[in-house]
């Protein structure tokens, strides 16, 4: 009789509570040392002509039109509006990023290789799984108890949760052929206005950012002419609630969920027709906010609006719309990394990873703060100082810039990029050296631009410094790394690992009923997943991700140290299992019984236990 393991063992719970201790490692950072002088503020917009010469994902200047959308407001009723009272309007970043929803607090607290964890060394984390699995035969089957909860799962959800039926994840379908198509400009005489608006409404998901004064800053879809009406309505609603001392967080209208993230000077709005919970959408908005901070820093952002509340933020953000859009689109497609607030690592033998870690350690120069080797968005190795951790949210921004957006990769050379990593320090800039490598035919060299590097295959060396003058020294670190990693055949190892791809579920557990799963190691802030082979199309993959979103939202509404959630629909049977150490989400065919699912879930955990040091980057190179 297969059973899920119980982690009720106090010893284990203790050992793994570290990532969630309130004393987060980053509070120990000596920030003053790394703060860099602020660059002068971007000048006032003088002309926007340059905007016009680039096919834009953002705006053109157009007069706003009134009365375009009179229907929309009527659908908003106070009965389905959730509000909460704020004590003061001027929230600081520390409280505004990742402190409100349970999942976003992991973003804040979960840091790659916190000092505490790395001190305990590589194998401790591996060993700590063992007692759990050894004792699992002795403890009663918690799974059996929890599974009965599925019958009344709907009741345990908070009212604002959009998942009202367990079948709904099947009902969503985004038309990916059209979702990301751009909407034509409304022409002078407004002939195609109707078309533009209906195209706008046909999108499954919208992200909009506006200033507190109501100025549009960013929209994923549509030009000013199309969105100004919507922006006006949203701003009116938000300020209506603000004037009564409450802050509007979310509401439903016309089959879409609206979630609003209020920051000191900005409102970020997500409108989603796909089923995601408020906290999941809020996490996505927080990522967009972090991207803005990454461009400007928090003091600059604050300063711009304190000088002039009606400032047009589009100008200082110009050129970063593509970064916001590639983040937004990855959320629309579905991002396991964002859902779990965790990163993925490239699966490597421990001995191979050790060699790479040691090479990174040896390459180090004083100016180097963080060094990373990343293959197609998966971590290969990280070198970092003992007292500084890496924040998944920060890495998500970097990976989005390098692997999702085209700009840096297509630049064809090495890059030197000033950026703020808000999780590390929202107040100042760091400088990032980036070099993409071409590993084809084991012939290690810098990527030649005529070769298109597919996203999954792109390998980047990323070196981050607080010193803006350290390009040359970062470049020599890279030269050393390329040379040494080539000599130790580590680059070939990396290339082989990339080519091998993610294993199939059946490679991991022969004959398993599982079609896919996500395993998050909380201590390592990393996740592992098998290949998406049976989910080739964006639509199928989105459906799978929606199942995960639903599982994630449902299981996180439970209050217990070990939580299990089981759901069945016409297309799948799924299981979520959350313990203080890990989160596991499994998906199998619709006729799969609970026991078979549970059996496979146990097998996954056993496999992870065995492979932990290969599939996760544990500790890394710490100096």
């Amino acid at each position, binding site marked *: 009789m297969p059973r899920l393991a119980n982690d009720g063992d106090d010893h284990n719970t203790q050992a793994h509570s570290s990532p969630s201790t309130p004393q987060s490692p980053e509070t120990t950072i000596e920030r003053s040392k790394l703060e860099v002088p602020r660059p002068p503020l971007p000048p006032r917009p003088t002309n926007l002509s340059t905007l016009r010469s680039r096919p834009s994902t953002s705006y053109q200047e157009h007069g706003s039109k009134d009365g375009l959308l009179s229907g929309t407001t009527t659908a908003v009723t106070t009965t389905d509006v959730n509000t909460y009272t704020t004590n003061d309007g001027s929230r600081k970043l520390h409280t505004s990023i990742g402190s409100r929803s349970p999942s976003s607090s992991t973003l804040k607290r979960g840091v790659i290789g916190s000092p505490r964890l790395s001190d305990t060394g590589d194998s401790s984390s591996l060993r700590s799984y063992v007692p759990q699995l050894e004792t699992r035969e002795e403890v009663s089957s918690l799974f059996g108890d929890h599974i009965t909860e599925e019958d009344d799962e709907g009741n345990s959800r908070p009212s604002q949760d959009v998942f009202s039926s367990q079948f709904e994840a099947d009902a969503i379908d985004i038309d990916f052929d059209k979702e990301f198509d751009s909407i034509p400009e409304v022409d002078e005489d407004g002939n195609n206005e109707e078309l533009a608006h209906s195209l706008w409404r046909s999108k499954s998901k919208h992200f909009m950012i506006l200033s507190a004064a109501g100025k549009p800053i960013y929209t994923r879809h549509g030009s000013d002419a199309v969105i100004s009406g919507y922006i006006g309505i949203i701003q009116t609603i938000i300020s209506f609630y603000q004037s009564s001392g409450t802050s509007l967080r979310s509401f439903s209208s016309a089959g879409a969920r609206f979630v609003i993230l209020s920051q000191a000077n900005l409102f970020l709005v997500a409108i989603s027709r796909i089923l995601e919970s408020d906290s999941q959408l809020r996490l996505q908005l927080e990522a967009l906010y972090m991207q803005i901070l990454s461009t400007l820093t928090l003091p600059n952002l604050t300063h711009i609006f304190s000088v002039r509340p009606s400032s047009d933020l589009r100008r200082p953000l110009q050129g970063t719309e593509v970064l916001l859009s590639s983040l937004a689109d990855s959320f629309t497609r579905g991002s396991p990394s964002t859902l779990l607030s965790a990163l993925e690592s490239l699966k490597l033998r421990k001995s191979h990873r050790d060699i790479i870690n040691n090479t990174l350690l040896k390459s180090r120069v004083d100016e180097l703060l963080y060094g990373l080797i990343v293959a197609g968005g998966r971590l290969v190795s990280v070198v970092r100082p003992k007292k500084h951790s890496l924040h998944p949210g920060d890495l998500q921004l970097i990976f989005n810039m390098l692997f999702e957006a085209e700009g840096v990769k297509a630049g*064809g050379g*090495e890059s030197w990029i000033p950026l703020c990593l808000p999780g590390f320090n929202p107040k100042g800039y760091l400088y990032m050296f980036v070099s993409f490598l071409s590993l084809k035919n084991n012939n290690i060299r810098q990527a030649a631009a005529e070769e298109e590097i597919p996203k999954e295959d792109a390998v980047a060396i990323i070196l981050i410094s607080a010193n803006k003058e350290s390009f040359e020294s970062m470049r020599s670190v890279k030269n050393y790394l390329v040379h040494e990693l080539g000599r130790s055949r580590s680059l070939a190892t990396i290339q082989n690992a990339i080519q091998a791809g993610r294993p199939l579920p059946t490679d991991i557990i022969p004959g398993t009923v599982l079609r896919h799963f996500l395993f998050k190691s909380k201590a390592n802030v990393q996740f592992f997943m098998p290949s998406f082979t049976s989910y080739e199309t964006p639509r199928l993959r989105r459906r799978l991700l929606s199942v995960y979103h639903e599982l994630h939202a449902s299981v996180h509404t439970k209050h217990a140290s070990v939580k299990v959630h089981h759901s069945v629909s016409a297309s799948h049977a799924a299981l979520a299992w959350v313990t203080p150490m890990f989160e596991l989400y499994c998906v199998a065919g619709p006729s799969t019984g609970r026991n078979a699912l549970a059996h496979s879930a146990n097998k996954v955990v056993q496999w992870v236990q065995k492979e932990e040091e290969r599939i996760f980057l544990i500790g890394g190179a710490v100096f």
Partner: protein
Amino acid sequence: MASRPGAAGRPGGRFAQFKLVLLGESAVGKSSLVLRFVKDQFDDYRESTIGAAFLTQTISLDENTTVKFEIWDTAGQERYKSLAPMYYRNANCAVVVYDITQASSLDKAKSWVKELQRQANENIIIALAGNKSDMVADSPDKRAIETADAEAYAREAGLLFFETSAKTSTNVKELFTAIARKLPLDQAGPRMRQNLRPGVDLRPETSNTQGAGPCSC
């Protein structure tokens, strides 16, 4: 880099290495010019540069003269303006780019020229490039800046001048070759290599022969 091109060309040939910086308003085509020059590529849609990109390209001026450019392609967005001195400070040459279809972009170019003449190396060679010349080939009314006007300004300010097209390659190679010819090559003796480090000028006495082979670090 593990695969730098063989540096000196033929024995007895001259080799010189120079730092070049591109400046100009966003979207005028700086990255496009560099990618045309370095990789002979062009993209109709190119994302705005984030930060700055560093590329190298080597050209032969004649049978025994090789010039290697170390190129900084800077971002034209205003928010990066304060970082520009870092890139032009040690530059031997600069290409200031404007878009011949955008009047304001020449004003921006002129202010870059002024800044370079005030703050950069005293002997810096500056070229002015009016880019996107292909766009006026079919529709001359798109032109916002007359060739003669830009040329007169360039002469007055002591700049090399070309109208270029990264899209069709027109004058791209010519631009960089003209710069190379104006650089103090004769000062670089046979097989002389320029210093790779910033802050050292280009006198032949510079005895730094830091190798350019694998792992010169």
